[in-house]
């Protein structure tokens, strides 16, 4: 489903160019259309891999969040360190019933984001994290 976030704009560009090409009949527009198609296909694959790399695991004392293909990142966020939890859903996400959960600690550099969760799962995770965070809260 995340693929659509890249796929939709690519398709729009493609359609626009195809229409422009049909109207003007110029070879350049067709060329661009083919280029857009290829780029879209590559992006499709990359997004697929990136999607595959997202992951999270709830452990006893901390949450693991993994992301990235080129730059592989693995964050360990102890429950006791969480300051607050965000659940956001953009228009595209909302139309597919998805949401993004984001964890914040006192450090600005903490980068723990879990996108594309089903809404129920997001709500469950949020409540679970809040509960665990409260139980293990540590001061600064």
């Amino acid at each position, binding site marked *: 489903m995340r693929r659509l976030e890249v796929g939709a704009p690519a398709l729009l560009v493609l359609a626009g160019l195809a229409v422009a090409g049909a109207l003007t009949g110029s070879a350049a527009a067709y060329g661009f259309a083919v280029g857009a198609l290829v780029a879209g296909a590559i992006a499709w694959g990359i997004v697929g891999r990136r999607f595959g790399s997202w992951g999270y695991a709830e452990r006893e004392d901390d949450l693991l969040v993994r992301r990235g293909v080129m*730059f592989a990142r*693995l964050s360990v966020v102890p429950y006791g360190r969480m300051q607050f939890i965000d659940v956001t859903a953009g228009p595209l996400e909302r139309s597919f019933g998805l949401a993004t959960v984001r964890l914040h600690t006192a450090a600005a550099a903490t980068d723990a984001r879990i996108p594309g969760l089903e809404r129920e799962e997001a709500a469950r995770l949020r409540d679970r994290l809040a509960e665990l965070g409260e139980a293990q809260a540590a001061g600064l």
Partner: protein
Amino acid sequence: MSSGPPEGWHRLHPLSPVVRGGRLTIAFTIPLILIAFGSEKLSNEAFQLAIIGVLALAGVVSWLVTRWRIEDDDLRIETGLLRRQSLRFPLAQVQAIDVVRPGLARMFRVAELRLRMAGSSGGTARLAYVAEHEVEPLRDQLLALARGARHDEAATPAPSTDEKPEPQAEHVLATVPTGRLVASVLLENWWLVVVLVGLIVGLAVSPHTVGRALRGAGLVWALSMVTFVWRRFNQQYRLTVSDGPDGLHLRGGLIALTAEVIRPGRVQAVRLVEPLLWRPLGWCRLEVDIAGRQRRKGEGEAQRGQLHVLVPVGTRALGMELVDRLLPDRPRELSPPPRRVFWKSPFRYRALSWGRSDTVVATTSGRLRRVTCWVPLEKTQSLRHVQGPVQRRLRLASVHVDTAGRSAHATLRDRDATEAKQALADLTDLARVARRRPAVT
């Protein structure tokens, strides 16, 4: 207000609005003096007088509506005439207490008390201004409260009528000679010196062209550079570190005097910086990072966006001694990264290393400006394991240790991949253990 330790509501010092006005006050006294001496006609100045009158009234009103008191374990400040504001600062969460005396405040013998709390916005309680002789007892009392002492117990010592501001013994650990401070600032900003010398030479050789170039943006740039150096100098002049009962005491400053107390349990990270030209002289700068940012506009300009400097310039031995005092269990041995890091960071790799003890992580980095960073594990917020494309090719990875501080992040850069994984697991466990231990504050 002079009757012993604070119990009920208190006002700030009556001269506060004058001092708070700062430069504005000075600017406004000049026309007043001119009028008083009759060199200006009163009718010409009526408009200015009106402005002064309104501002003076606003100052008096803001003084009248501001009051503060200590309630159990909180400091409460009420302020505002139309938009009434009641602020409550739990003393148990105080990160540091500063006493700041800008130039004008010193003239009027008042001082500002600043309580730094954790948190990013509005995290500072300011009492501006309090009479000078009351500031130190008040600070000691607040610190005692912050340590968890009972209110009445803490109130009995330190009567405000005491002539000596600091009755308890303080053991001075380090102070900075002025000459060395000047040399260090110039050496660290050597490029600035080069530019200035270049300008002077240029002016001597062909004043016309250089002068024309300066008139535009160049002048602004040069001025901002000068203020930067000046600010640093002003802040760090005669900075003295001493060992007090409640943490390390810092005092210093040329025009604006500051006095701060750093509580050992509040230190998020410690950083030892050795700029390139300092190294032949064996000098270093020691900075500590404390949670609680100062980003509000009214904050003292000297301290914006900087770490706390413990020792502006000192020998490495002195720096290490203080590090030992702050973090007794610092790692003694640092290990260098594998040799193949050369292919990724040919310049940096010699400077990289890391080490850990059971409670502290240490990292070094920086070829030219060497930075050593210590982070107590109980203060880590999160750990991140990052592997970029080049690193993967070379079987390397980095581990970031995030803290709540501003800029002192420890990074285990370019380690062997298996070692990095192992370090991530170890540090996670050690940090958990460190957090569980009862905090010693």
